[in-house]
C-alpha cells in the first residue's frame, strides 16, 4: 500500500490537473474503507473540478508559511506544538492562530501520538501517521482496536480447532484464503495474535515431532493446538483452590487477622458466600 502525494501541475480557471508525484511506504492500519476515500491508483492523472476553496493557492501569512513548511518537513512523524514553538521561535499566540488557520484551510490535521496522548501533534494532511505515532497495526485513533483483536482471536481459535495443529503461517494462509477476515492479515500479525492466545491459555505452543498429527510440519517447527480447556468448547483456565474461596481474592487479606476488625468471623464476603 502506498502513500499518495498530490501536487498541482497546472490550473486553469475551471479545472485543476493533479498528478501523482511521489509515493512513500505507508506503515499503519488500513480498514476496508482505505484512507479518506482517496484513490490508490498510481501514476495516473486525474481531472477534477477545482474545489471552491482552493487551499493550495490561498495565500499564507508568513507565520503560517513557516509553520506549514516545518510541519510538512516532518512528513509522517508530525510535530508537537511545543517543538514547533522552539524551532520557529514564534510567539505562542501567533502559533496558535496560525495552526487554526492552517487547519481551516485543510492543509494540516491534528493526530494522536500514542506515546503522549495529551500533547497536540500536527501533520500535513497528505501524510498518514507513522507506526511510532499510531502504535502500529493494532491501534486506531490512538486506542487499541480491541474489537478487531477480539475478532482475529476468535477466528484463529476457530481455524485451529479445525486444523487440530498448525503453524502461524498455516493459520494465516487459511484465514486469508477463506476470507474469514475483511482485511488481509500478515503472518506476523497472526503470530502476535497467537502469542496472546497462548497467554490466554486458549491455545498452547508445541514443537513438531514430524510424525503423526505433525506429519505435514517440519520437525522442530513451532506450532499451536487448542488447550483442553480452550477451543470452541470455551473455557480458558480452570479455577484453583484459592480462587474458589473469598480469602483467595480478597483485597483486604493483609489487614485480616483472627480477632481483628476484619476477621473470618466478621467478614462480609464470607457472610455472602455462606448465605444459603
Amino acid at each position, binding site marked *: 500500500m502506498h502513500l499518495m502525494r498530490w501536487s498541482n501541475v497546472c490550473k486553469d480557471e475551471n479545472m485543476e490537473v493533479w498528478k501523482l508525484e511521489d509515493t512513500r511506504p505507508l506503515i499503519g492500519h488500513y480498514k476496508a474503507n482505505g484512507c479518506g476515500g482517496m484513490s490508490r491508483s498510481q501514476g495516473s492523472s486525474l481531472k477534477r473540478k477545482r474545489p471552491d476553496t482552493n487551499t493550495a493557492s490561498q495565500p499564507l501569512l508568513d507565520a503560517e508559511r513557516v509553520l506549514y513548511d516545518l510541519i510538512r518537513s516532518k512528513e509522517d512523524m508530525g510535530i508537537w506544538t511545543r517543538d514547533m514553538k522552539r524551532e520557529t521561535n514564534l510567539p505562542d499566540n501567533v502559533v496558535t492562530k496560525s495552526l487554526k488557520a492552517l487547519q481551516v484551510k485543510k492543509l494540516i490535521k491534528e493526530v494522536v501520538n500514542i506515546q503522549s496522548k495529551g500533547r497536540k501533534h500536527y501533520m500535513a494532511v497528505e501524510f498518514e501517521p507513522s507506526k511510532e505515532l499510531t502504535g502500529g497495526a493494532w491501534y486506531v485513533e490512538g486506542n*487499541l482496536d480491541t474489537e478487531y483483536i477480539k475478532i482475529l482471536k476468535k477466528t484463529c481459535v476457530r481455524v485451529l480447532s479445525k486444523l487440530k495443529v498448525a503453524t502461524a503461517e498455516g493459520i494465516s494462509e487459511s484465514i486469508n484464503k477463506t476470507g474469514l477476515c475483511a482485511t488481509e492479515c500478515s503472518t506476523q500479525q497472526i503470530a502476535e495474535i497467537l502469542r496472546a492466545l497462548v497467554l490466554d491459555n486458549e491455545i498452547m505452543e508445541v514443537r513438531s515431532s514430524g510424525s503423526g498429527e505433525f506429519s505435514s510440519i517440519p520437525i522442530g517447527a513451532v506450532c499451536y493446538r487448542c488447550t483442553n480447556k480452550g477451543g470452541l468448547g470455551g473455557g480458558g483456565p480452570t479455577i484453583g483452590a484459592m480462587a474458589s*474461596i473469598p480469602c483467595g481474592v480478597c483485597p483486604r487479606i493483609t489487614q485480616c487477622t*483472627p480477632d481483628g476488625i476484619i476477621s473470618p468471623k466478621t467478614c462480609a464476603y464470607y457472610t455472602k458466600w455462606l448465605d444459603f
Partner: protein
Amino acid sequence: MATQYGVQLAVHLISSHFGNLVAKVCDCLLRKGTLTLASVIRFTELPPQQVKSCILVLIQHNCVQAFAIQQEVGFGEAPRVVTQYMALFHNILHRMRFAKFLAIVSEELDKECEEILEGLLQHGRLTLEQILDRAKSNQSEGEPVVQDALRESFLKLVRAHFVERCPASEPFLAPPSEEETPARKRGAKSAKLVEEPQTIEQRAIAAAAPMDAKRFSVIINTGTDVDDSPNVTAGEKRKQDALELDKETGASCEKDVLWRANFEEFVRCLRHKACIANVKTRLDDGAAIVLSAMLEATRSEEKKVKTENSVPLSMDTIFEGVMKSEAGRSMTLERVRGSLIQLGCAPCVRGAAESYSVDLKNIIELAQNDEVESITLKRYGRDAYRIFRLLSKSCRLLETDKISDTTFVEKKDTAKILYQLWKDEYLQMEKLNLHGSRQSQFLLWKVTKDTLWGHVLNEMYHSALNLSLRVAYELEQEQEIIQLPREKRVGALGNRFERLRKVRILLESSLMKLDDAIMLFNDF
C-alpha cells in the same frame, strides 16, 4: 516452610486437638526455635510440670522431637549433655489431612487396616499390643476380634510402608567439630562438592530415624521375622541367630516397639495423585492412565518424596501395568507410546533396553503455575492474567511498553496493573535510567518464583486458618441447634440446622481442596 501464618495455623491445629496449654508450648517452640526445657518454661511462664506434660503430649503425637547435645562448658568442667526440643512443623500440619490418609488406606487396603491406622493417628504412637487391645475394646458384641487377622492387617500396613517404627526418642548428636575435620582435610576442590552443612534440626531427625532395614521390620511373638528390607535373604540366617540369642529379651523388646503412621508414604501417594490429576486435565485420560501405572509400579523404589524423575521403566513393564487397570485394558501399545510422548518421556537406553521416565518436578511446577495464575485471574482480571503469564514464562525483566504490545493491553492500563501486582508482591520492579539526547526512565518487571511462591504459601496458610476459624464460629453460633434432638429440629430450627449442615460441607470441603494446594507448594 514455617511462615508467619503457617505458625498460626499450626498452633490453631494443636489448640483444637490438645487445648490451649499444649498450644502455648508448641507456639513457643515454633516461634523461638529449638529450646531446652528450662527455656520453654521461662518463655511460656507456665509451671514446669505443665510444660513437661505438654511436651510429652507433643512428642507422643510426633509433633516434637527431642535430642541430646553436648553443651560447651568452661575450662576444667566436665562436658554437660542437655536435651533440646524441636517442633516438627510439617507433622503438625499433617493433622489437617488425617482424613486423606485414611481414605488412601481404605482405597488401597481394607477396612481393618483403616481402623488400625485410625488408632495410630488418634493416639500418635502405639505398640502392637496396644493396637490389638484397642481393637478388642472397640469390638461390637457378637463380633469377636480375630488376633491373627488383625496382625495380618497390621503387617499389610507395614509392608505398604504406611506404618513405620517410631524414631529414637532422644538421640545423642556428637559435637560437630569431630565431623567437620575430615571435610577440611579433603581440600578446597573437594570441599566444594560437599553438600551444604546440615542444620542441627536436620541432624537430629537423621539421627533419630531408624535404620532402613529396621524401619519396616516386624518381629512377632512366633519368632518369625517379617522383614521388608531388600536384603532379607542374605540377612535371614544372621537374624535367626540373633533371635535365638535374644530369645528371652527379644520378645519383650519387640513388644515395646512403638509404631506410628509413616507420613512420608502418604505424602508420596498424594503427590502421585496430584501429578496424575494434573496430567488428566492438561493432556488426556490415556496419559493419566500411563502415568498412574508407572508410578504405582515404582512407588516403593522412590528414594525421597520430592523425587524429580520417576524411576525408569521398560516399555514392557509400563504396558503390563497399564493392562492391569480396567481403564487401561483397551489401550494399544501404540497409544501407550503416544501417551509417553505426550508426557515428554524421551526413551533412555540402559544396557540393551530402552527405559522411560517422567519429569515429575515439571508436572508439579506446572500445577503450581496453574494455581497462582488462577489467583491472578480471579483477583486482578484477564488482562492481568495475560501480563502475569507473560512475565512468568519469560523469567526475565521486561519493559512496560513491550508488555503492553505483547499482551494487547492499553499502555496506561498495563502500567496500572503492573503497579498493583508489584504492590501486592507478585512482581519485582527495577528502574532503568537512560542518558541520551533526552533522559528517559524505563520500568522493568519480573516474576521471581521463589519469593512469590513463599508469599502465596503464606496466604494459603492464612486462608486455611480463616476457613477453620469460620467453621468453629458457625458451630459456636448454632450450639443450641446442634444439641437439639432430631425430632425438635423442625420449622425455623430445622432450616437453621440445614443451613449449618451446608455451611460445614462447603467450608470443610474448601479446606480440603485448599490443603491440596498447600501440599503442592509445601510438600511436593
